[in-house]
């Protein structure tokens, strides 16, 4: 019993490794600058947003190291959007293989998110360089940051499980998700500091931070760049119960997503 379990697990790992490598190789196929684009893309977006929001609209003036925090927010948001947007269509895109061989389908979702995670790692290195240039003080508490990055990862993974399984039957979900993501982008305090919302209504800021993406981006900013970036925990006045809400939600999404995906996956071969 234990050995068959191990064999199954081993197959998934072998497959996961090879799919991640393939995805990485194919990502910038045929482009001259290749992998460099995974750094250049957020960098150019940052330059544009910097000019529009920081230089002209003067947003985030009072927040220390705001440009670095802005870049960090964009990079984390891009990671979340990459995992979920690719996740939606990933099962259908692999339909060809699914119809011909039986393998654990969750590996497809996992491979997509892991390759995005590698991409995020490269981007975080660039941010590290920016932090040093900007003279950001680095504290021991920064070591907690990966925990919140993990939270975004888990949330995106759970959502991908649900979205990809739904997409097999209902293709509209792709467009619906696109719209949700656009709304979520502006609601997640990526391009403006949350302090701007607090000025108007602390309750609204607190409500916005119940969204796990906004909350975790804020926490990473708080830990890595400056504690002038308030988090849900500080905003709620140290109320652990409120601070734990998004985390509980994320875990709930992952559990439901995994259950739903597992239930639907035996039928993928017939339906894609």
């Amino acid at each position, binding site marked *: 019993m234990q050995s068959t379990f191990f064999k199954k697990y*081993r*197959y998934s790992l*072998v*497959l996961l*490794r*090879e*799919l991640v*490598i*393939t995805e990485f*190789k*194919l990502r910038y*196929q045929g482009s001259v600058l290749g992998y460099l684009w995974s750094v250049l893309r957020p960098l150019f977006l940052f330059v544009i947003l910097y000019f529009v929001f920081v230089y002209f609209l003067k947003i985030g003036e009072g927040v220390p190291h705001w440009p670095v925090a802005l870049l960090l927010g964009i990079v984390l948001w891009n990671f979340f959007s990459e995992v979920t947007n690719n996740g939606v269509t990933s099962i259908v895109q692999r339909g060809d*293989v*699914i*119809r*011909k*061989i*039986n*393998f654990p389908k969750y590996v497809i979702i996992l491979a997509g998110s892991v390759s995005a995670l590698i991409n995020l790692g490269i981007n975080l290195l660039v941010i590290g360089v920016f932090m040093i240039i900007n003279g950001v003080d680095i504290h021991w508490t920064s070591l907690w940051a990966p925990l919140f990055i993990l939270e975004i990862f888990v949330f995106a993974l759970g959502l991908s499980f649900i979205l990809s399984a739904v997409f097999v*039957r*209902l*293709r*509209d979900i792709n467009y619906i998700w696109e719209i949700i993501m656009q709304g979520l982008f502006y609601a997640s305090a990526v391009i403006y500091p949350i302090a701007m919302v607090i000025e108007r209504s602390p309750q609204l800021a607190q409500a916005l931070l119940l969204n796990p993406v906004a909350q975790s981006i804020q926490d990473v900013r708080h830990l890595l760049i400056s504690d002038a970036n308030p988090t849900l925990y500080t905003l709620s006045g140290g109320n652990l119960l409120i601070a734990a809400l998004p985390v509980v939600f994320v875990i709930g999404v992952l559990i439901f997503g995994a259950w739903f995906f597992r239930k639907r996956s*035996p*039928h993928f*071969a*017939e339906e894609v």
Partner: protein
Amino acid sequence: MVLQETVTSFCGGGVMDTQTNETVISVKKVSKNFLLPHEKNTSIKSTVVNIFKKKNRSVETQHALKNISFDIKKGEFFGILGRNGSGKSTLLKILAEIYQPTNGSIDIKGKLVPFIELGVGFNPELTGRENVYLNGALLGFSKKEVDARYDDIVEFAELEEFMDQKLKNYSSGMQVRLAFSVATRAEADILLIDEVLAVGDADFQRKCFDYFKSLKKSGKTVIFVTHDMGAVREYCDRAILIDNGVISLEGKSDRVADEYLKLFNDSKSKHQQASDNRWGDGRVVIEKFSLTAKETIKLDVTVRANDEDIDDYVLGYRFYDSEERLVMGGNTLNASNSSRLSLEAGKSQRLIFTIPHILGTGTYTLATTIRSGPSVCDNWDGMADVKVSKSEGYYPIIAPAEMEIK
């Protein structure tokens, strides 16, 4: 007209030693239904519309498999035969655990490797080398395991110079060779092989056959799906014939292969009217005939001229195999006693041909043509069938040599 020689199964011999009574695959009362909605709800709009119009949600159930049961023993070469659309592919996908059965269960003991199709996951944008690792991973090989087999794989595929080229620059034959080469390294107790023999050139096919022979020797259990009855007769111990979702015959591969071919002949005669397989101006016609095939093939034909004197006619005979390929033939001109044949109006003439019996195992169809001058008097296709089962194996033509031993 059916030749019954003593049937000696070519497949027997060595295999029996490795075969045991242990059942490795047990298919119990398996049914598979597909629900085919007439209007598929793939957008919210149609879903919403159909929620309000409940009567519109007609779903057709397609019964692809109906209550199928069979067992496969360890070390057996098991053939699954059936026409296109018979449910054969569905059964295969259920065995490979790609589809879930609607009812019933499947019990598989050991590791099963499905070759439903070769080169699963092949990506044209990757190089040959990268595709070997990707395809290998789908077959369950870790990078280390592929590393160890890599040189063998490349050598077997004969693609040494091409491994760093992108797959999209490969010819289809090269792709198949590479895919097959990876697949043959799979270490499994049970192999599911679907129509892989149909691809590649003669040289490659010989390699495939060698591989199957080695599988047979090593006592692997093989489930084999093909339309090549020669291969079925040569390799399979037992077979099932699937027709319309049910098993219409289970038994020795020779018998099932014959039944499979009959399926085509039956449906052919149904579709083909008498006028289609017999035509001509009718000046000379075949009145009656008989065909026997023992040590030699004896064709006894009575020919009659109808309304006019015919002073020069030729009669030809042809034998076609089950795939309608012309196998052999002859006519009154190249026969031993050849002479100008003539017939007075209303008279008959009997022609007896003794033809050397060189046909190998299979079902053959006789056709004759009577010709006078430039016009065809009586052309008769599908006149009679000859069923041959010989011990020599699956050669289409048996050509015994004069052998000298020095």
